[in-house]
């Protein structure tokens, strides 16, 4: 048997040396890891405009530097719930998970204005609940503030093969291209419906076996895009006048 003093001494020395070693390793890798995470999130946003990237590339084909460069060139205003721009903050600094915990009137909305061959795209971020956990997405609208140019979704814990298809199956998010969120000036968003029904400009087919996740996506879009409505109305009124600037 070992004495208590030996045991305590052994544990103290072991944990102390482990702690020092791991802290050192973490400090050494911290910057690169944070940068990787940043690029990862930016790629997720860019996948909403996957079809409109420079040189016809796909998001996975972009180098890290290109992703950073695209973001450096983008206008990144942050809106409040009234549609006014909040100064002194960039869209990429907004953490949607934190915003969602705030009461609705206090939320800040990140907006990315992406330009490709002179055409403007407004990328909106939305967040909601799936079946098991949070889901989120980025929706790119064309310059009319009405037509969806592309959408990309992600999730934390949806079932693989069912709900997780919103991310894994590109066919799901591709359906959103060309859909419209306003109907004759009235806000309707895009609904996720049972496959096989009549196709309209405001519905996409859901995934069999993932009804709740599909409803979650529809709900998330309805609420999330509605937050941007004051801003979208403004674009719609001045659409046609090209080169609209955010105040």
């Amino acid at each position, binding site marked *: 048997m070992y004495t208590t003093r030996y045991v305590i001494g052994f544990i103290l020395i072991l944990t102390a040396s*482990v702690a020092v070693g791991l802290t050192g390793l973490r400090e050494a890798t911290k910057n690169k890891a944070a940068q990787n995470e940043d690029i990862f999130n930016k790629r997720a946003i860019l996948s909403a405009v996957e079809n409109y990237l420079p040189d016809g590339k796909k998001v996975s084909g972009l180098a890290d530097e290109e992703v950073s460069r695209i973001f450096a060139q983008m206008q990144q205003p942050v809106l409040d719930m009234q549609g006014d721009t909040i100064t002194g903050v960039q869209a990429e600094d907004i953490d949607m998970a934190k915003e969602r915990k705030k009461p609705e009137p206090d939320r800040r909305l990140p907006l990315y204005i992406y330009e490709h061959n002179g055409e403007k795209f407004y990328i909106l971020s939305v967040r909601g609940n799936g079946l098991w956990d949070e889901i989120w997405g980025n929706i790119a609208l064309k310059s009319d503030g009405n037509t969806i140019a592309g959408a990309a979704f992600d999730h934390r814990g949806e079932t693989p093969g069912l709900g997780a298809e919103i991310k894994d199956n590109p066919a799901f998010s591709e359906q959103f291209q060309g859909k419209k969120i306003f109907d004759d000036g009235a806000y309707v968003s895009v609904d996720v419906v049972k496959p096989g029904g009549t196709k309209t400009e405001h519905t996409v087919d859901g995934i069999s076996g993932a009804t709740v996740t599909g409803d979650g996506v529809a709900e998330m879009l309805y609420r999330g895009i509605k937050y941007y409505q004051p801003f979208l109305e403004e674009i719609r009124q001045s659409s046609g006048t090209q080169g609209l600037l955010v105040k």
Partner: protein
Amino acid sequence: MAETAVKEKEPLFQFGKKERQLITDPLNDNNPITVQVLGICSALAVTSLVYPSFVMAIAVVFVTGFSSLFTSLLRNYIPKQVRMIVQLVIIATLVTVVELTLKYLNYPIYKQLSVYIGLIITNCIVMGRLEAFAMANKPWRSFLDGIGNGLGYGAILIVVGIIREVFGKGSLFAGSPIEMKIIGPTADYFINTADSVWFGWYANNNLMVLPAAAMFIIGILIWVQRSYNTKLVDVS
């Protein structure tokens, strides 16, 4: 006294029959998954694609190998009352090293494996080998034993991953630089089911994407293994 003088000093890094067995045994006769039935949780969870399975396998080989090595080096100094805590500290340290390294080298795969990297700590294979082998054997052999068990685990992971990915998604190594598209309804795939005469009926099996499929596949692997390796069959 004379005996000890005659006895040859064992070289530090011997690699004879016994050492080779330490590596090969866990691959078949003593496989951690199919024979000892350890580490099932992560084997079900991460094997829907080959590439994450492969990364997970490397991570586990690293953790089992080095935790066995360090535990064995310290085995004469570890107080028996707290040996499990000491083993856990060693395992947790190595797992954190893996986690930080993955974040540094390949963030998307770190995201994909998410909690399962952290859960290597609770993988019974790791601690089982420390208790059963590393606490009583010399460092070099313990290291080989750890590597062997990690490889035994990893081999099953990759086999299950290949089966699940090919039949579930029609691809192989998706997400990695050497992604291959095997069978599917567009022209990118090696076998294009949309215009193939032979495979027009084929559709991906959605069950394969679910963790439950891994359970069946591991069950079938156990069956196959036992039908040619009859000494594993439990007759009791």
